């Protein structure tokens, strides 16, 4: 069986490395491991992984520095896995170029889902144009949203927001990224726009807008479109 993808796991904790390795190998991934930031940069350069799982608190150079180092030459998806949970830490990692952020302790399912989403972004064209959820259906090609067979009208901006999130389904879309894609490059701090439009989208599509299942807010980071399994 050809490997699904090549993953670089960077963590100073042996037990985490071991658990991840066991899981990823069982799913057919090729796994490289690194214990320090320096080692991570070296292996990334040598082995060209398809996705990187990165701890931030590393001996030697810090995880954020590792992200910057990799971003210097590669757009490989990077999923951060860290005990740091403050917004400042998250934004710092995302700004440095991380694609997603998972806080420790984490469930293996969740991490694997994020890894898959990250990998999907890295291989464009493979995405389906029609997404069906138990509550509504989205046709990205014809720009139509249907609920119980009836079409739901979205304003152009609402559609744009939905489009960006669905195309990146399962992945974190940072606030800044969403603003710039929908409103334009000069927008990056107007996060209140996002709150307003996300609320409208949820009212139109979510079965229970106050407990969103599909359009998830990642506080301080951005938004994510989740597809239930």
């Amino acid at each position, binding site marked *: 069986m050809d490997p699904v993808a090549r993953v670089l796991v960077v963590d*100073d*904790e042996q*037990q*985490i490395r*071991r*658990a*991840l390795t*066991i*899981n990823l190998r*069982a*799913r057919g991934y090729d796994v490289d491991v690194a214990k320090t930031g320096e080692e991570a940069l070296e292996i990334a350069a040598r082995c060209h992984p398809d996705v990187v799982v990165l701890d*931030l*608190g*590393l*001996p030697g150079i*810090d995880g954020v520095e590792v992200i910057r180092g990799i971003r210097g030459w590669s757009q490989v998806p990077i999923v951060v896995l860290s*005990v*740091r949970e403050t917004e400042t830490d998250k934004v710092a990692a995302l700004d440095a170029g991380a694609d997603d952020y998972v806080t*420790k*302790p*984490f*469930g*293996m*399912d969740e*991490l694997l889902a994020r890894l898959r989403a990250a990998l999907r972004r890295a291989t464009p064209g493979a995405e389906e144009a029609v997404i069906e959820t138990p509550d509504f259906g989205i046709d990205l090609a014809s720009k139509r949203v249907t609920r119980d067979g009836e079409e739901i009208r979205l304003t152009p901006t609402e559609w744009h927001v939905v489009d960006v999130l669905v195309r990146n389904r399962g992945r974190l879309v940072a606030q800044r990224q969403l603003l710039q894609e929908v409103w334009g490059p000069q927008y990056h701090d107007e996060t209140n726009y996002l709150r307003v439009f996300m609320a409208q989208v949820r009212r139109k599509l979510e079965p229970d807008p106050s407990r969103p299942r599909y359009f998830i807010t990642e506080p301080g980071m951005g938004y994510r479109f989740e597809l239930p399994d």
Partner: protein
Amino acid sequence: MARGKLRIYLGAAPGVGKTYAMLNEGYRAHERGADVVIGVYETHGRESTAAQARDLEVIPRKSIEHRETTFEEMDVDAILARKPERVLVDELAHTNVPGSLHEKRWQDVEMLLDAGIDVISTLNIQHLESVNDVVEQITGVKQGETIPDEVVRRADQLELVDMSPEALRRRMAHGNIYPAERVDASLANYFRLGNLAALRELALLWVADRVEENLQAYLEEHGIEGAWETRERVVVALTGAPGGDVLIRRAARMARRAHGDLVGVHIRPTDGLAERSPELLAKHRQLLDDLGGVYQEIAATDVGVALVNVAKAERATQLVLGESRQSRMTHLIRGSVISQVLRAADSIDVHVISTTGSEEDPAGVPLVRRRSPGITRRRQVAALVVAAVALPLVTLLLDVLREQLSLPSVLLIYLLVVVAVASIGGFLPAAMAAIGGFLLGNYFFTHPVHTFTVADDDNLVALIVFVIVGAVVGDLVSRVARRRVQAAQAQAEAETLARLSGTLLSEQDPLPALMVGLRSAFGCASVAVLRRDGDEWHIESSAGEPVPQRPEEAQVSVPLDAETTLAVSGSGLGASDLNTLRAFTGQLSLAVERRRLRAEAATAEGLVEANELRTALLAAVSHDLRTPLASIKASVTSLLQSDVTIATASRTELLEAIDAETDRLNNLVGNLLDMSRLQTGALELVWRAVGFDEIVPAALQSLGDPAARVVVEVPETLPRVNADAALLERAVANLLANALRASPPDRPIRIFAGATPGRVELTIADEGPGIPVDQREEVFRPFQRLGDRPDGDGVGLGLAVARGFVEAMHGELTIDDTPGGGASVHVAFPVAT
């Protein structure tokens, strides 16, 4: 000839009955047999008024042509010629038509008075010069005819013809005052009730000599703008000399009686040499303030002239001075301030008041007296010696040259000696030298020679001039010397101040430097800044010995602020130094304040640091707790996956990881608890004598398999130590765990024990990287690794707890190098007794 008496009937407005009253009075006098004539009277067509004239003699008016109109004015000449006893002259403020004897009728009246004729006259309040503008503000009508207040004030009798405004308006309405056609307009304008009331008030007040303050109140109450300045102003001269309080009180009384203002003026001499006491001056200033006076301070050279100038600028009417304390001699030579003031005062009344009633004791007041006389006694003696030597020598020399020199030349040479002596010793030696020169010159060089008689007047003049010139030069020299010394003193004070200001700017905590500076500047034994703390005083900063412990112990104490006081002791601190000292206190206050602020800033900094440390500790604890949790959760969720099958070997691995991480977590939680027990002092010790040989195996066992590589050399024969067995075991286990982590897996750990007299020591030696000397204390600090950076795995709590335990049991824990590399930890306890 006696001057005539002037009686004025003053009214608030036209029509109150002044003329009536005047005529009535005249007639009564006439009835009593007095020679009364009517100089001039205006009835304004009022019949009742005209009727009052009855059969009084009327001096016919004089006709004066002006611009083709005929005017009738009082015929002063005719009255003077008639020379009655008494004359009635209506409307004192009347302006005569041009071409008359005088411009104003009151000038005519003055003339009549001067001629010894009594005058009865009338006047409306609005014509008074001083109230003219007020009346204009009240009534809106400008009065062209005014009369100086002086004239009216001088009147022997002033009678107010009063009528209530309502009655006056009634009279008006009945046509008793103006012809019917003018009544309405008048009632609506000038004769408005308010106007009349105000004018009446004004007249009453003026008469009662209480015009100002009440009118001011009236004006304010009625919102009438503009101040009315006719106040009496009393200026009192303040010198800061004892007895000033008497002056101020007297001046205040004068001002109060006159309902005037009180102004205190202190003339600060520009040479800065006058005798004055700042304490007294400040006291006087306070008194002045209490009595409602205003204080002014002006620098001037000429005190008397300056005082008068200020008084004039203040429009003072009275100037109060204290009796001079100068000696009669000083008066003669330098003139007195009082005579200066009297000469310059012009119209201002000058009161010179004796200050003998003062409670202020001149002797008890630190009168500022400059200590330095300018010329020292030594210089005076030296000058006298020079005079005693030079005068005979010069005489001998002149005797030789007698034929070639005239007396003036001889005296000039003597004068040279006198000037030289003066320049050395000042006035006294110079005067003595001059007299000596005079006598020598007289005896040896004037005819008849060798007698003290002088035959020639010319020579006598020369001799006298010689003595005077000598004395004057001597005086000048000593004065110059004195001023130079004073200037030097002032400069020294200024320099000291400047230097201390510099200290204040440049030093972080300038207080100690200021103390030292202060002590040396005033040459005192010790200075201190004391801070009050309830009833206690403690020393904030000091210099010199012995330090005064309380302000009472000090010779001089000056409060700096509510809590701090400057205490100076053991000094010849003169009164003049108090000035400088006072200037210092400002600096000291600043320094004290700065010290307080710095202390506060340090506290705040400490709090910030403590806060940062706490945040870092929290981050570290959360990392240390979450890391094993993350491993456990990752392993457990892996095992829960249903979509893939995990090989048995891998499953075992995951389960082992869970097991190990759970132990790690438990260990960490235990250490955290221990740490908090240590820090809160909640540690309960069970003391007993234990041997290391019991402890070490238990510790090894708690560490499990990894401890297999520990080499144990702990003899059972060692003395036992007093300790809590459980805590000691935990301490040793922590130390072993640390050593196992630090040391490479293939190198052994050695644990051995030995006894020295009275002590038993356990050593744990690893062959890891070792701990540099400068970090050996740091590693014992809890979470010395901040944040989640795992620099040296697990060095979080283990060592801190170990040391905490050992020290709680009165043991000692130290680190040094293992011979050949690595770290050795020594645990030492005293032998159990």
